[in-house]
């Protein structure tokens, strides 16, 4: 069969179309993957601002979820698992051997709360970020002010996602 026969040309076109379709499918899948560098920056870089659809992307990417959990576990200074919270009056206290986290409603502004973190070892490295996740939801990140005497205090709105997550007894916290 001559190389320029119509049948041959048709077969080549079909192969090319199949290759292009495969290439397109592969690119779309790769685009939907969250780069590991982005996960790393989310955990380790206080200046990093995640894209608006970051949580949606995480939800759709099981590998990324596992990688993010692993990064937090490896990089964090303190882990406060679920069910470590105790409520006392207007305060919610979480405590481990390494740190305490206390949420206190403001008496002056009922719509605001004080978040206080105290590290128990004053010589240990001080965290600069807090990660909190309610059960079944994605991680929320918050940069912390500089610790003084192993303590830091932040003022948050009562409806802030971080406040709401910390208020939930089934939430999990990492200090990085």
């Amino acid at each position, binding site marked *: 069969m001559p190389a320029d026969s119509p049948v041959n040309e048709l077969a080549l076109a079909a192969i090319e179309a199949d290759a292009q379709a495969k290439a397109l499918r592969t690119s779309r899948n790769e685009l939907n993957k969250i780069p590991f560098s982005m996960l790393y920056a989310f955990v380790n870089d206080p200046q990093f601002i995640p894209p608006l659809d970051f949580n949606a992307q995480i939800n759709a990417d099981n590998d990324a979820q596992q990688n993010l959990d692993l990064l937090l576990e490896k990089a964090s200074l303190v882990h406060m698992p679920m069910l470590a919270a105790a409520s006392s009056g207007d305060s919610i206290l979480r405590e481990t051997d390494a740190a305490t986290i206390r949420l206190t409603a*403001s008496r002056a502004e009922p719509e605001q709360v004080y978040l206080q973190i105290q590290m128990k070892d004053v010589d240990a490295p001080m965290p600069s970020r807090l990660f909190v996740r309610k059960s079944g939801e994605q991680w929320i990140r918050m940069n912390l002010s500089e610790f003084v005497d192993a303590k830091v205090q932040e003022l948050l709105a009562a409806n802030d996602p971080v406040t709401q997550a910390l208020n939930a007894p089934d939430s999990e916290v990492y200090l990085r």
Partner: protein
Amino acid sequence: MSGITVHILTTNAPATIQRIREEDSHVASVICLDGRAEALPVSAAYDAFVRKPIGIVEKLTGHNSYRMDVSARVDGGRSWQLAAYLAHAALLHADARPRHVFATGEVDDALNVRAVEHIPEKLKALSIFLEENDIPHDQSVILVPASTENLPSSLDGIPVFGVGSIQDAMEILQLVDHKTSGAKAVPNSIPARRTGRKRWSKWVALFSIIGFLFWFGADFARWQAISNQGRAVELEEVLSRSSGLIDTLRTRTFRRWLSFSRPKGDLVKFDGVASVALDAASCQHARNITRRPITETHSGPETVCEIEMGAYLVDPNLKVVGRMAYWPYGLGVSDRAARTMRGHDQPNGRTWVLPFDDVPGPGAVVRLVTITGMSAIQGPQPWYQDLLRAKQTSPAFIAARHRIERLGYSVAVKDWSRK
């Protein structure tokens, strides 16, 4: 908040202290911007200013955690401390008269007010703020550290006071009582101290003070010499220059001595005559003039041609100086009095004779202010500006009177007005 509104002077614009509320004790005190969930960076310094053992607010109020909301950002430094302390003190005086206090100054743990920078810029920013905001100037005061150089006596009609201590500021604001005496009020301790003081005889106090004089050294003699010569402004400057604990203690002791030795009570008797005629033209001819003892208010139909007033000393060992000011349109209404007179020295006091070029109409006021002490004041007397123009109940007048009383003199006032 009390009736007193306190503003922190800044180089941008005054930051009004909108409110102060208590928080739970384990919460660190914060300064927030306009009710928002944003603690300003100065909050850590505010917490240290509030909480014992370093903080002085807890010593005043007995509580250790507050949230303060301000109308504008307050950046670093410590110049917000005077205003913050006064705002806390004002909370203890819910019945205080409404007024605006603009303040800047650092406060140390001995409650002295220390110098701060950029006061000219802060006053300039305040001036712009006053133009843009409806602040009653006659109910306002400006407080800055006493050590500030080239301090104006007023800004846009609001008196400017240099204060050396919280005590000075409290007295200007009339906030001095057991609640704000510098320590948390212990109900039984104050009366006990007062009773103890009453038991002191005058002689014991005198000998104690003399002992102090010897102990503290020769400066007392020099200050006393300045006082004896009536160089009041110079004395005030010398006493405000103290630095360090011993210096402060010495100047305070000397001020207490001045206060102790200050002549008190009814020191001068006022007397006066008004020369009246049927009309202004008749004032030119002595035969048409009738002389009448003056009363506080002249309500007759006649024209008052001249007023003559005298301040006569009850104790001939004392000295009296004074000024008489004529306000044709009412006390302090115009920028300055139409006439201000020093008067004439007399063997037993002083007299002032004021012939009216511009005869007093309804509302006109003549004020006579006398200052009595062991010596006649010499040289400049900046306190007259407020003593001659402000209402006797105003902060400006009270502060000016307090200022001269702290130098060992007593002030008396006689007002005459045309109804």
